[in-house]
């Protein structure tokens, strides 16, 4: 409960800045409209107008809030939670690609790290490629992946998940290589004095030792995965998903729609990372390491 004060302070500061920004950025449009209508508006009239424009440069928080409610809560009340106009539907589309990509990325990342730690050739050769893969802008490579996979008849969820995987395996490899190498020489020698096999060394020493490194990596990977899923939705022609909402919003200048999709994506990421945080707490507590 001690944390609630600082958190609320920061949230309040963000809202103040956001409102101030909305007034500043939308003011010129308010004045333009008044000029065309040949009326003089006072400062307070202008402020009132900037809060409720149809296509504001920066929508005010309450406009975004109202839009999110209209496309989520209200749809649920009307029993159309999964209609194509509902953000819940679009979030689910993005979430499913995120989760699949995250699972694939984690699996790929863990396997690569095991290979790097146990195989000298992989140790010498894989890491530079892993790093190089992340220096390529994902926006450039995403359409290629979609096109190539489409050409061999794979479309829909999987291509997006592959893009998520492409982004999310990286932090897992880096974290797990560090984690699997975290036991010191003495502990490895100790295993040797008991004539432990490679498998026993892995399951009983290296893997448990890597847990404190795994979870922070997973948090980064989850956030990257969501970005990957959204980016993956852009070149498919904005069919469905939060990325599609962003793209459609920008086609038609629907800033309120863009911002509500952005905020929803942020909330989704925060929730996913928080879930990993809870799992981390439970696991490390049970292991006596927290």
């Amino acid at each position, binding site marked *: 409960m001690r944390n609630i004060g600082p958190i609320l302070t920061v949230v309040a500061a963000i809202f103040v800045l956001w409102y101030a920004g909305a007034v500043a950025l939308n003011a010129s449009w308010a004045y333009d409209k008044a000029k065309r209508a040949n009326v003089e508006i006072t400062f307070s009239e202008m402020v009132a107008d900037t809060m409720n424009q149809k296509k504001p440069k920066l929508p005010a928080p309450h406009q975004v809030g109202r839009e999110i409610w209209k496309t989520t809560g209200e749809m649920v009340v009307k029993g159309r939670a999964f209609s194509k106009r509902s953000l819940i539907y679009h979030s689910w589309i993005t979430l499913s690609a995120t989760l699949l990509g995250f699972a694939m990325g984690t699996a790929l990342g863990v396997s690569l790290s095991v290979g790097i730690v146990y195989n000298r050739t992989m140790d010498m050769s894989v890491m530079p490629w892993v790093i190089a893969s992340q220096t390529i802008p994902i926006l450039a490579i995403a359409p290629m992946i979609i096109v190539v996979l489409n050409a061999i008849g794979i479309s829909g969820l999987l291509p997006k998940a592959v893009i998520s995987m492409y982004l999310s395996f990286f932090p897992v490899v880096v974290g797990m290589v560090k984690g699997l190498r975290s036991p010191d020489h*003495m*502990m490895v*020698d*100790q*295993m*040797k*004095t*008991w*004539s*432990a096999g490679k498998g*026993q060394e892995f399951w*009983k*020493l290296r893997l*448990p030792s890597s*847990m404190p490194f795994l979870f922070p990596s997973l948090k980064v990977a989850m956030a990257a995965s969501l970005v990957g899923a959204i980016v993956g939705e852009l070149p498919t022609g904005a069919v469905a998903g939060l990325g599609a909402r962003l793209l459609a919003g920008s086609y038609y200048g629907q800033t309120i729609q863009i911002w509500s999709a952005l905020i929803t994506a942020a909330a989704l990421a925060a929730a996913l990372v928080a879930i990993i945080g809870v799992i981390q707490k439970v696991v490390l507590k049970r*292991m*006596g*390491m927290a």
Partner: protein
Amino acid sequence: MNDTVISAKNLSLTFETNDGPVHALKDINLDINKGDFVSFIGPSGCGKTTFLRCMADLEQPTAGEISVNGVSPTEARKSRAYGYVFQHAGLYPWRTIGGNIRLPLEIMGIGRAEQDKSVQEVLELVHLEGFENKFPWQLSGGMQQRASIARALAFQADILLMDEPFGALDEIVRDHLNEQLLELWARTNKTIGFVTHSIPEAVYLSTKIVVMSPRPGRIHDVIESTLPKERPLDIRDSPEFIEIAHRVRDGLRAGHGDD
């Protein structure tokens, strides 16, 4: 019956480094008999730990021979002939004390019932009864090291190799653990190899004190202790004890003559 447990003949180990070869061990000859408590003492760099690690198959000698229980150290390690205690307790933080002691037994594929029995036995040997379900961080440094010794004892190896096990502990705890170690040795009749750089510790514990000197690492003197097997702590004030300690100190000084 031949009761030599560990035997080194002309044992040498040279590390190749960027600054040229380092002679960690040179022409070491030593026999350790069953039931001996042998201490290795000497300044840092004299190869005492390296010698112990050779016995444990953690280092490979570059010349000479060494046998443990009549076979090579590798075979001895694979037949789990020795328990090794490191300078730091090295308990796994995610396992309880019981779980830590169970660890080598799990690795060796010993059944659960047998594991439970061994854990209780060795906990009693190191006086840690009732701490089975505590995590390592809940124990003091001395208790952690006792748990680590219990773990090395758990699989009934006849040889116990200890590399400065009490080096990181304070004097009072150390005295206490030395006393307990002697008691444990008397009860189990194990052969113990013990690396230390404390003269009183070496003299108090050992039946045989091996004084080593550095550059190259070799044996300077082997002192057979004349102290009785039964050793209360105040034996350290007896003339006999002081005499042996004196001889050890002289040996260390002579071996260090070049610097």
